[in-house]
């Protein structure tokens, strides 16, 4: 088999394209990492060389290869307390702003999408119980949704591997989990406190039932969507939020590649996005 080589100019060309489409910019010190994965995809797709592969990547109507490439260039793993800085932002900044502006005592509504196997929604619940003083005053509703019904079942079951709980402080593991089989079972109180639903974000009719949220967590999902799907997801989130509600994206994601509908907001812990209020 012929040896595939990525030249300096190939790398720069790819880097610019990937940055524009995905929002991730690889510095030169990532060259080895990027080259290795590019070569792997070039070989797997049967492309002749970088040039052929790049043309396919750029012009492929379905965008499937770009999705594959994003997969290998990013780490998509879910575990408890992943990207914890955002939960800190939630309890230290976001919720206080929301409760300050709330005109009634209706529950705070939080939507996690995609639910995946539930780690994120449960992490938020634990974080609120442990770190948000407002829990004594406010009711909170957490809804966690995924397109995949198998994931929803797993989330509802609440059984996790030790790998998935490895970043949880030991005290919290003891407090909210019981060892079970070769992993851990989340406690019944938490299990019953979250509503898990199966949804398709692209189905606008189905989405009409998702309204009046204060915060949406949508991490590491839109990065895999094509431009049109990103646009539709942003429309859905906009309508699902109350005025001044927030969207939290994943660490390597930015609204700059997704939509103009939201305003960028800086908090000490994180940058998040906000639906403009009605006065504007």
């Amino acid at each position, binding site marked *: 088999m012929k040896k595939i080589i990525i030249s300096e100019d190939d790398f720069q060309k790819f880097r610019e394209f990937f940055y524009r489409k995905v929002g991730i910019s690889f510095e030169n010190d990532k060259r080895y990492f990027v080259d290795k994965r590019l070569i792997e995809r070039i070989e797997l797709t049967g492309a002749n060389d970088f040039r052929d592969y790049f043309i396919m990547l750029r012009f492929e109507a379905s965008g499937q290869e770009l999705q594959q490439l994003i997969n290998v260039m990013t780490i998509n793993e879910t575990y408890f307390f992943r990207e914890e800085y955002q939960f800190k932002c939630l309890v230290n900044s976001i919720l206080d702003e929301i409760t300050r502006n709330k005109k009634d005592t209706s529950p705070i509504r939080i939507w996690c999408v995609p639910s995946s196997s539930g780690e994120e929604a449960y992490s938020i619940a634990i974080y609120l119980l442990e770190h948000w003083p407002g829990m004594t005053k*406010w009711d*909170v509703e957490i809804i966690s949704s995924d397109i995949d019904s198998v994931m929803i079942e797993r989330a509802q079951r609440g059984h996790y591997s030790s790998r998935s709980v490895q970043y949880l402080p030991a005290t919290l593991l003891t407090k909210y989990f019981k060892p079970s089989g070769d992993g851990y079972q989340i406690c019944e*109180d938490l299990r019953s406190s979250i509503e898990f639903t199966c949804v398709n974000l692209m189905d606008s009719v189905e989405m009409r039932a998702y309204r009046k949220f204060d915060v949406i967590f949508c991490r590491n999902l839109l990065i895999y969507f094509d431009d049109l799907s990103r646009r539709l997801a942003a429309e859905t989130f906009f309508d699902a939020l109350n005025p001044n509600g927030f969207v939290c994206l994943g660490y390597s994601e930015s609204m700059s590649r997704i939509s103009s509908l939201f305003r960028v907001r800086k908090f000490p812990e994180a940058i998040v996005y906000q639906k403009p209020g009605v006065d504007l």
Partner: protein
Amino acid sequence: MPFIKKNNPTMDSYEHDCSRDLNELAVQLVDENPVIRRSAALNLAEHQGASEILIDRLKQDRDISVRDAILTTLISLGDTFAVIGLVECLRSEDAALRNEVVDAMKQLPEKVAPIMTSLLVDVNSDVRIFAVNILESLRHLQVETWLDRVIEDDPHINVCATAVDLLGEVGTSTSRAALIHLRSRFPDEPYICFAVNLALKRIGEDKGT
């Protein structure tokens, strides 16, 4: 635990009342409440033939969330009226609207391709620049040929500059002669020299497929 759980996500009563009728939606599209206008714009996606009233509204509406919804619906309708209307908006005085429209047209590659030749020779240089911007997303065999023609013929330096940027990404050795010629057309423009040299370097030792 103070977590509460409802059995079903809430159904908004307003949403239930939302009309599906074209005429009613057309009235809602000019309502004074932007929430109603936005909802009408999204619901019009179910009506082939709604493009004209949507375009009409797009040109006037000052609310970003309404314009965004209108554009989303126009993308999904994607008919001739939508495309013609979007092209008209490229000539708008409103910079934000023009940029939003370019973004939308990038998502209609098949619909825009047939009119690309005429957009690229439009009398308005701004429209030509936007046309090159739209080419960025076009998955079409002609893209390189179109870009070559722009840098060969277009008298406006900024139209050529925009085209060279894209050629650095999609160009092959076919474009080499046109690039060199462009450099000689604007010998005193450092930016053009810089961009042409970069594009030539990126094109590299190409077999010219």
